[in-house]
């Protein structure tokens, strides 16, 4: 594996450039949702992150595939692929930055701190001149700020220049709301500008040998302007985001094209090269634009998005995303990972033999970053405590009355955090109804359960308050219990065992059942519950 760039290296070779581009892409992949969520300018359609990702991704993939390892070849791929694949305003600006950046590096044939500085200046120049109405407070300002900061740090190493770039870029990002009033109104920084900083952050981290990090979206949000008119913020003047790639028929200059496009739309970005025309424009007349551009050659690709609709959908999702949380109460530590396997990020409160107190649940709910919280009890004896939480909490708390963790695990499969709590409760109920559970215990004394005598030391299995089977042997008991629970109609069987169960024995039970019921999938998980030795979920 290629080693990291040394702190004092004044020269970056081609392998390190590729490494840094891969780092940029990986970092962006991990964080592009944050960029999408912050997107309000020029149109709050929530796609800046994905547009930037899809602009850069094919380029880095193509570089990876290419066997050529020289600046000329690699940067030509970067230029070409980002130009061809650029999406949206942000993608277009990013592609033009890379175009200018690459020109400089190809010309110099090396990357030193000085060349890096010059390349950032050129990237800024090319991108700014490709846009019909360049705006302050966007990615363009970040290019400029970084190039300026690098110019003042001439004597550093390549890595130090990148560190300067990240620092100055982040500072400029936080100035963006002052430059673009719409950002101030919405209480966010500019998403495209931040997206570019994420790319540089990714480059820097990879060259330092550091891991990809997950950015905290809250850092880039602040209190919105109280006088903000949401309707105004969501207003779209020119509704259709129209992007075209034209393969030019002949090299005649498209006289008057820019003027025509300025009259018919806004957010105009037009690139005319010898063989292609690349266009991004927001307009209410996309078909007219397509017809006009068709005069100059063949339409290679066309993308027309209805931004009004995108905004409505984004607003709906965003609203739910920030409202719905779910807290699952679990009777053993093992269930935490099982629950997270089904729903990453789910809040889980594990309790032992002693049931959780109202105060513990309330405290946990209050700490959750959601205003609407569904609490999944997973034990009928906990439901009263959750009802008290519902009364006492300042948040909107809904109780999901799962009577045991097996029901809870099934219900999680119906949970979609972006949906409303009503939809979630309905879907979770539907999921929960597909499962039944068996609990396996060992009797510590001679006793009776639901009218059935259970000798001391015997195992017994309970389903819906009925004793399904009693046996002195664990294996025999489990097989008997499963056999009594209509196994032929089941598609899944899940075992959740605790510390007292012999896992080798359980594995042999699983093998026996798999041989007997070929259509049934069998899973084994550690639950760590304190009461039942084994919980069996049957779907």
């Amino acid at each position, binding site marked *: 594996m290629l080693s990291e760039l040394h702190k004092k290296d004044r020269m970056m070779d081609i392998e390190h450039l590729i490494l840094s581009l891969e780092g940029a892409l990986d970092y962006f992949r991990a964080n592009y949702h944050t960029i999408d969520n912050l997107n309000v300018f020029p149109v709050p359609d929530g796609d800046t992150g*994905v547009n930037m990702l899809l602009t850069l991704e094919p380029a880095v993939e193509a570089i990876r595939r290419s066997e050529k390892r020289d600046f000329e070849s690699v940067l030509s791929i970067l230029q070409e692929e980002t130009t061809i694949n650029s999406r949206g305003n942000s993608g277009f600006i990013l592609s033009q930055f890379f175009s200018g950046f690459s020109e400089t590096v190809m010309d110099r044939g090396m990357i030193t701190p000085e060349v890096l500085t010059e390349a950032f200046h050129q990237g800024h120049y090319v991108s700014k001149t490709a846009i019909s109405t360049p705006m302050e407070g966007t990615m363009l300002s970040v290019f400029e700020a970084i190039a300026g900061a690098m110019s003042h740090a001439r004597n550093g190493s390549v890595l130090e220049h990148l560190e300067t770039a990240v620092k100055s870029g982040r500072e400029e990002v936080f100035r963006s709301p002052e430059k673009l009033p719409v950002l101030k109104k919405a209480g966010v920084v500019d998403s495209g500008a931040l997206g570019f900083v994420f790319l540089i952050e990714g480059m820097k981290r990879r060259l330092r040998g550091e891991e990809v990090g997950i950015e905290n979206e809250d850092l880039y949000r602040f209190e919105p302007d109280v006088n903000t008119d949401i309707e105004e913020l969501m207003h779209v003047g020119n509704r259709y985001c129209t992007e075209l790639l034209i393969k030019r028929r002949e090299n005649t200059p498209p006289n008057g094209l820019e003027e025509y496009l300025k009259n018919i739309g806004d957010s105009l970005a037009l690139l005319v090269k010898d063989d292609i025309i690349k266009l991004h424009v927001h307009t209410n007349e996309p078909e007219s634009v397509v017809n006009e551009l068709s005069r100059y050659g063949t339409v290679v690709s066309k993308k027309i*998005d209805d931004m009004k609709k995108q905004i409505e959908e984004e607003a*709906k*999702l965003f609203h739910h*995303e920030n409202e719905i949380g779910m807290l699952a109460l679990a009777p053993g530590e093992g269930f935490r990972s099982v629950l997270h396997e089904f*729903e*990453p990020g789910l809040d889980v409160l594990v309790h032992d033999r002693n049931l959780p107190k109202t105060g513990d649940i309330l405290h946990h709910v209050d700490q959750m970053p959601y205003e609407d919280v569904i609490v999944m009890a997973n034990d009928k004896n906990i439901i009263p405590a959750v009802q008290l939480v519902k009364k006492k909490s300042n948040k909107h708390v809904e109780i999901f009355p799962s009577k045991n963790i097996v029901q809870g695990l099934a219900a999680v*499969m119906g949970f979609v955090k*972006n949906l409303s709590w009503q939809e979630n409760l309905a879907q979770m109920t539907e999921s929960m109804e597909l499962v039944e559970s068996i609990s396996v215990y060992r009797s510590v004394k001679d006793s009776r359960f639901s009218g059935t005598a259970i000798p001391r030391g015997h195992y017994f299995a309970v389903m819906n308050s009925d004793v399904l089977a009693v046996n002195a042997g664990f294996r025999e008991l489990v097989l008997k219990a499963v056999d009594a629970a209509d196994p032929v109609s089941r*598609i899944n069987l899940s075992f959740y065992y605790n510390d007292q169960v012999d896992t080798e024995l359980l594995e042999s039970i699983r093998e026996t059942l798999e041989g007997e019921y070929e259509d049934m999938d069998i899973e084994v998980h550690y639950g760590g519950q304190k009461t039942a030795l084994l919980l069996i979920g049957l779907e």
Partner: protein
Amino acid sequence: MKIIIDNTCQLEPERIKELGLGLIDYPILLNGEVYPQTWDMPNVREEKEKFIELMRDKRNKATTVGLTEEQFIEAFEKYKNEEILLITQALHNTHATRDALNNVLREHPEYDVKAFDSKSLVSGVGVQLLALLRETEGRDVTRDECYNILMRNRENTRVLGVLYDMFYLHRGGRVGLAKAVMATAMGIIPLLSSEPASGVIKAVGKARNFKQACARFLAMIKTQMEEKDSKTLTVAMSYVLDHDKECRYMKKKLEEAAEERGWDLYVEINYSTFAHMPHLGPDYFEMGYVVGTA
């Protein structure tokens, strides 16, 4: 009367011929070039699988484009002396197609066309046609009657499906939907649904395997049948590659439910058409169903 439908309907060529339908193909672009495909091309199954293999290489980018006025005119011209009933997929997502169709209807009164927007996607389109044919079988019906039946069924149509690989939907720019499911853990299958009222595709949960997915789908269908107090169910499923096993399993479960609950059930399974592959990718199965009538 001639029924014309577009190739999003998820019916296979033999079925289209058997039903005597006219068909319009949505074009596909692969890496910016028009990909040669038609619904009735020779060796169509092999050609589809060849295309799926190309899709599997994620460096290849496939997209769809809207229908043009010329395509509509060409289709209508073939049946210009007949009454035409045109059934389309949901047009609110494809404004270019909608505009092209409206222009043709406005500017070419010589074609006697009544257009029905199914407001549905994938098998939700084809199943509305199948439900119509079930209901009108053996009867002489006018175009207006057919149209009214379609309108009634449209509100009772739903689409359910499983995409094993969300990459393609995500790359296609359907960000809202992708967001709804991206948080889903690896190895967990997102269950998707769309309803005609909104046409919006949404995640309705997840499953660990296809049997669980089918169990959830069956539960949803049962709930809807009960809500509508219906005993009649028409289902069209589609798949790619070997995902017919999911469809056959689902069909079996539907038949068991039908027997238990006394449903009048019709199920049809087709290999997916080209039209959806660019967005849905190389691994999926889905179904559209209409509750009621017949």
